[in-house]
């Protein structure tokens, strides 16, 4: 991709024929990619809104479960083909993931949480999840754990990690360079506009490089454009609105997964993005499908598109908190505490629900209402990063997740 880009630019420079000042300038600067620091891949998906772990991976073996959840389980409480291990079963909206489970490429960590307790606010919960600094600083975190990880290892370069999607994430914010792109940010430019933009930016390195990358990305992304096609100005005018329409949270997730896979097949090692819509206060049996199905689809797209790289990949999906054990008056669940982390990938030692299961009897619940968290979600994540990237224990415990005790190795990876 780089080389075609360069030759296209060479062509542009010549075809513009703008005299010596332009011709003499170093218009073509081939971008050298530093070799990637590792070979393994990590995809972090933030599930926003508070995934109900007890619904996604149902502890049907717990004697209290059916009673707590009767209002939302409907007529389908029997796990059947969705049974995982004789105690837990999968939500029907995740059924397509069963082959991964069987192949040992899917696992779950149940009854996990961040250190966030008692307040149950989405804002604070997500800040704590992404900052990874523990509960002391509720607001005011300036960098995320994924960025600190990158800053702490040698050899990471600007495209080692990609934050994908429209929303800036605290997770990837910070000192280390993280590339960002959204597949729906495809540029709609006429060939002439593209040439002229190149011209008015080429003396300014910052702009010239960003423009080159933006054009490359929009051409290699899901919304590939044929720049030879005749683009009229209405297309350009509508492009922003198309961007705005597709920036709605439920759209474009498949494109995001495809884009992530495309980058990860090349020099990118880490991709991070969000899936929204897990805040199921009402009509959960209907609403949670709309969030779980895209998650399942996303994981399958990553597997299919990553090809051989899937074997080096771990996907972790985590949420700010779980939800109440009991249903509420509107056939949903409210903000809770202990929750679920979803892991997938060929690098996984999967086919397991990893948990120090607390049970669902009332005395075992957190505050008598929520699933009791028995392990910090950061510990699992820390162990995965140690396994994938060989991070020092001290880097994880002091820098990435300051104050965390990693504890015993849960053996999540092969």
């Amino acid at each position: 991709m780089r080389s075609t880009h360069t030759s296209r630019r060479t062509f542009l420079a010549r075809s513009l024929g703008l005299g010596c000042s332009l011709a003499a300038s170093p218009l073509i600067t081939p971008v050298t990619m530093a070799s990637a620091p590792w070979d393994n891949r990590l995809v972090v998906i933030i599930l926003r809104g508070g995934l109900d772990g007890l619904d996604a991976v149902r502890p049907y073996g717990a004697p209290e479960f059916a009673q707590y959840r009767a209002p939302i389980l409907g007529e389908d409480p029997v796990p059947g083909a969705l049974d995982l291990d004789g105690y837990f079963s999968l939500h029907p909206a995740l059924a397509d993931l069963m082959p991964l489970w069987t192949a040992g490429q899917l696992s779950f960590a149940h009854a996990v949480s961040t250190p966030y307790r008692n307040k149950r606010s989405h804002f604070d919960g997500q800040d704590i999840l992404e900052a990874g600094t523990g509960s002391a600083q509720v607001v005011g975190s300036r960098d995320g754990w994924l960025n600190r990880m990158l800053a702490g290892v040698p050899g990471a370069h600007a495209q080692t990690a990609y934050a994908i999607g429209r929303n800036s994430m605290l997770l990837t914010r910070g000192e280390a360079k993280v590339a960002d792109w959204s597949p729906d940010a495809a540029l709609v430019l006429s060939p002439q506009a593209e040439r002229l933009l190149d011209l008015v930016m080429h003396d300014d390195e910052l702009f010239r490089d960003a423009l080159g990358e933006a054009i490359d990305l929009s051409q290699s992304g899901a919304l590939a454009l044929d720049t030879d096609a005749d683009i009229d100005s209405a297309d350009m005018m509508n492009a922003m609105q198309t961007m705005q329409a597709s920036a709605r949270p439920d759209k474009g997730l498949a494109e995001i997964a495809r884009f992530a896979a495309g980058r990860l097949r090349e020099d990118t090692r880490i991709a991070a993005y969000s899936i929204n819509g897990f805040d199921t206060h009402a009509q959960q049996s209907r609403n949670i499908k709309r969030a779980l199905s895209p998650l399942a689809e996303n994981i399958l797209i990553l597997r299919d598109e990553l090809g051989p790289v899937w074997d080096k990949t771990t996907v972790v999906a985590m949420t700010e908190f779980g939800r109440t054990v009991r249903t509420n008056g509107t056939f949903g669940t409210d903000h809770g505490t202990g929750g679920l982390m979803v892991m997938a990938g060929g690098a996984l030692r999967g086919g397991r629900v990893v948990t120090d299961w607390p049970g669902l009897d009332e005395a075992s619940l957190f505050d008598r209402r929520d699933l009791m968290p028995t392990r910090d979600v950061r510990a699992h994540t820390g162990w995965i990063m140690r396994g994938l990237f060989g991070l020092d224990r001290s880097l994880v415990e002091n820098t990435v997740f300051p104050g965390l005790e990693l504890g015993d190795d849960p053996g999540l990876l092969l």
Partner: protein
Amino acid sequence: MSFTPERAAIRFGCGLSPQQAAPASVEDTLALLTGPDRAAETYPVPGWDHVLQRSREVRRDTRAFRKSVGTDEEEAKRAAMKAMRRKLYEESGHALGQVLLRRAMTKDGLRERLASFWTDHFAASGKMLAWRQVQVNYTEEAIRPYVSGRFADMLKAVITHPLMLRYLDQHVSMGPNSPVALRRDGPQGLNENLARELLELHTLGVDGPYQQQDVRQMAELLTGLTFTLDDGFKLRPGFVEPGDKTVLGRTYGGKDRLEAIFAALEDLAAHPATARHLARKLAVHFVGDTPNAGLVDAMERQYTQAGGQLLPVYEVMLTHPAAWGDAPGNVKRPLDFVGSTLRALDLDDRHVPRGNLRKMRRLFYNPMDFMGQTWGRVTGPDGWPEADDQWITPQRLAARMQWAMFAPLRLRRVLPDPREFVDMALGGQATEQVRFAAKAAETRAEGIGVVLSSAAFQRM
């Protein structure tokens, strides 16, 4: 190098305008700044009382809805809540329009830039529904009146402002030996968020001469600062940690806690580390990411000599040769970019659809979000990034270019000739390449878009 009207308008103002002449001199710039706030008079934005009133209405509607659940009234109450939410969004769309029009129309561009700078220095935003979009009201009340006065006065206004108290959790911070804490048990206690940011971000700077002990003592001193939706700012004696507090070696105490807090804020404002921190931050923001050391030194000295008055510091910056160099200036932030575009486009008020929320979203709110600066929100208490490369990423640049290509035609049915627009937007800053591109574009919209996207226009 020294003052030129054109560079002053671009680097220290809101951009060039075919309607408003650029300030003629440094004296002229400063005179405007000390004169009446014409832009705020022409394009008013409500203050904090309005926010409190709306918050009370939201509270009332929410309570009424909760009560009505399961009764015949439920649907009506739900609709009332929704209507209120809609109203809040519409008001915020209108306020954004006012802010953009101020930038498009003002003669006094430095005032708008300073209001943004200091709002960002004291970054805060709201989390509850009624406070999602209130940064503009906070600026109007706690920042804007003080931008040319004493820094200490702005500091006091901010540190006692409900938005800041709420954003950094001060409103729930309780001294461990306060009357309320002694009566209650549970995890509530001291919260150091505001105290830490006050020292680290607002005054001394991250390299400043303070220790954890100072943060702790400052946090104890600040206990009791809170607010209610009915009264606004309030000192709550029940939360106050008793006893004298020592911050940076000075002891604050006495009967009147607010007076003690203000005394500490005065001392912090007058601290040499604060002078250094603010001088550098202003120079980075207005002149460049790596400012000239002599410029920073001169501003720092002036801050101290002038007793923390800000106007003389601006004067030093505006008269210093290093502020006027030909080297490319900072990248415009999305608000600067959008504002200066409106200014160059020679608009009337009616071109900005303040009353139409859908259009405001499509034209401004969403595009600025894509450019990386969500209107009314902050990413953290340290404000928006200063570094140019944080703004010009492929994705964010794509959003700028796409907006530049489509928005002008949405704003004005008849676009200027791109060859003339080059002069309106860039004047003498236009490069040969930009002039060529304006001429070579296939359509007016594309020509305007290319001029607006050029590095020459994107920088200050």
